[in-house]
């Protein structure tokens, strides 16, 4: 033992040194570093989880967007179809209206024309009667009683009208 150098004071000193180092390292190395390592790994795990979460969210959002787009597209198609239909209807209606209007105008014009013609005929007839009276007066050289005369002509014309109609 003596030759090896074992002695109690040195042993106690080395035990004390070890204890001292243990305490110092615990305070200055193990505790803060392990805390930091744990903190860092927790942080990394957290951020990885977060990334995963965000990725999932993004995927969901993408799916949702796709769904919305397809829905909107369908909706749009429907609206366009509706619009086309309405347009068609409107066109048809306009056509109808135009046709009706045209017919109305034509009828009106026809009536007008008829009225014009009747007026013209009446005028012509009156002028013709006057002319006939004048001519007849000239021919028979006698002046008929104007009133008598007119009656006569009217009678003739009435007959002729009947003839006309027939």
């Amino acid at each position: 033992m003596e030759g090896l150098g074992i002695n109690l004071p040195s042993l106690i000193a080395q035990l004390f040194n070890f204890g001292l180092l243990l305490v110092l390292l615990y305070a200055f190395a193990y505790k803060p570093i392990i805390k930091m390592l744990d903190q860092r790994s927790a942080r990394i795990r957290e951020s990885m989880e977060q990334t995963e979460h965000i990725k999932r969210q993004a995927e969901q959002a993408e799916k949702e967007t796709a769904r919305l787009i397809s829905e909107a597209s369908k909706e749009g198609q429907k609206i366009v179809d509706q619009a086309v239909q309405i347009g068609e209807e409107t066109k048809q209606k306009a056509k109808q209206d135009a046709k009706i209007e045209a017919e109305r105008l034509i009828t009106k014009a026809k009536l007008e024309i008829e009225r014009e013609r009747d007026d013209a005929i009446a005028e012509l007839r009156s002028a013709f009667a006057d002319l006939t009276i004048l001519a007849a007066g000239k021919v028979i050289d006698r002046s008929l009683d104007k009133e008598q005369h007119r009656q006569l002509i009217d009678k003739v014309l009435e007959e002729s009208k009947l003839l006309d109609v027939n």
Partner: protein
Amino acid sequence: MAKKKGCLGCSFPVAIVIGIILLTVGVISLLGGALGKELFSNISLPAWLSVPSPEPELPASVIFHLFGFPITNTIITSWITILFLLMVFYFGTRNMKLIPSRYQTIVESVIGYLLGFCEDIAGVKYGRKFFAIVATIFLFVITNAWISLIPGIGTITIHTIEGHAELFRGVNTDINFPLALALISFVFVEYWGIKTLGLGYFKKFINIRRFVASIKLLFRGQFKSAISGLFYGAMDIFIGLLEALSEIMRIISFTFRLFGNMTGGEILLLMMLFLAPFLLALPFYGLELFVGFIQALIFSGLTLVFANIAITPAHSEEEH
């Protein structure tokens, strides 16, 4: 990329010059050392090149007394080790950030390596419990070993009452230090065992259950089974005693493994430096660096393994 001409990153002329210098140093080292003196006794070299013969001694020298307490050179060196480790970790952990600086990364990786080592062997729960002791053993032993490898650290001598003494000496080579570590390792292993298993921890040392049961059988008259039971019971007791003895023997094996390796390494280096002062001892420094690491790893690793065994319950009797 064109391949560079030359040897080991130097151009040929530089490599040749370096080679010649190394060769000269090697030759001088051979001639100046003890080997050269034996072989070529007629060559005399200047006095500053000849190396005095080493006188290794096992007990550490007392440098001074502090309040009547002898302070040896190994105690002084262990204080330096403590101071060094404290400084390394103090500056490494003074200003810790989640995104570490380079220096912080270094100290963190050392601690992280040791923590991983503990957790790998003993699991996360117990590994963290054992960590402080195991890591302190590792760091203390390896730093002691490497500090005593600083070239020339053993040449600083001091006048004491008992004559010349080295001021610094590798702590691992003073048997009191390995013994102290072994005692600490032993005490903590037993403490963890008792704390984890309670009184059941002693089951593996005092194993008389089968013996007692066999004696009962003997009184009941079941001789055949009683005799075989007595035999196995006696064996159990013997194995328990062996367990207990091996537990005690660990202290000695721990002590002398570290002490022997480190003292042997120290003497090897002294001898190599004596035989050939320059250059030739260099590979042995590399070897001793490695040995220091391995011894630190073995001491802390064995403590860890023994602690892990101690907290594992012994095979219960119900299994038989």
